[in-house]
């Protein structure tokens, strides 16, 4: 597990450095993800240890959002003041996004097995 965690952190760090150095608008972990993906493609396989660690981390993915979600507390005044636009925009936009993505993808895949 330790080597796998180290690999993830090294890719994240290199991603952060690349983002800062090149002044890219993309966050470091995303660059790290793209680089790790490219490495796996070049390598032709994923080490099972890395796969297990990634699985473990991603199984509890929704837990990782809880601390940020509790931040609701400090923004409660702004959210209350603009509750109508925020709530309607979140719900409507999310529903429309799910619908548009699904319809476009389903339409493009038509005729494929």
């Amino acid at each position, binding site marked *: 597990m330790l080597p796998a965690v180290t690999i993830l952190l090294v890719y994240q760090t290199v991603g952060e450095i690349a983002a800062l150095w090149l002044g890219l608008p993309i966050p470091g972990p*995303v660059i790290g993800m793209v680089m790790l993906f490219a490495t796996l493609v070049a390598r032709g396989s994923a080490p099972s240890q890395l796969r297990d660690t990634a699985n473990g981390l*991603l199984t509890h993915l929704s837990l*990782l959002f809880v601390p940020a979600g509790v931040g609701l507390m400090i923004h409660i005044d702004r959210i209350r003041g*603009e509750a109508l*636009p925020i709530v309607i*925009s979140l719900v409507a936009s*999310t529903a429309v996004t*799910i619908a548009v*993505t699904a319809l476009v993808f389903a339409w493009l895949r038509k005729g494929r097995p």
Partner: protein
Amino acid sequence: MSARFEDIWVYLSATPLLGLTVTLLAYQAAYWVYSRAGFHPLLNPVAISVAMLATLLTLTGTPYQTYFSGAQFIHFLLGPATVALALPLYAQFARLKAEWRQLLLALVAGSLTASVSAVVIAWALGAKKATLLSLAPKSVTTPIAMGIAEKIGGLPSLTAVLVVSTGIVGAVIAKYVLDALAIADHAVRGFAVGVAAHGIGTARAFQVSEEAGAFAGLAMGLNGAATALMVPLALWLLERGS
């Protein structure tokens, strides 16, 4: 006796231990409820944990910053988890290669819809500029969205809240929207949820099926990269145009 308890409380509430422990306890309690209810979408574990923790902090008069000094250790894992998305992405490499055009077009359509519709609806209903800029990256996973919000002048911590709320909304409504559209293919269902509702939607999709989960993870990773590229570019174009 009660003075001693207060001493213990003062000590504990100042260490990271408490924030970390209550987060894990709350999440596991919420997850237990969720699994006992047969993973009903309305009983989303993130929503329940956030509600429990916010209530607890309010009742005990604990500031969010104090709580976060402990909970940040969990929050930090979002970074490595984003990097780890390379693995489910790689596991779908064969399908990615075979269907990359369809996936890319669906991604661009969904990604644009997510940002543009959120900003336009909130703008039409009178939201302030900082709120609009914080809403633009709402459909991508937290670390990416916070990074984007920071770059374009939104409020990263507000974005984090909006992102989590979006994820919860998406995980809750996806089933109903997709059923109404009669979309049965799990790959399509997962992909749509991943684009709209990032990691929380992906967690939900994995509970429905392996295939839906893999496509949701793929969509989440792709949408993170796509939004990170498109939102700053769109704002740059807007500013040049005006």
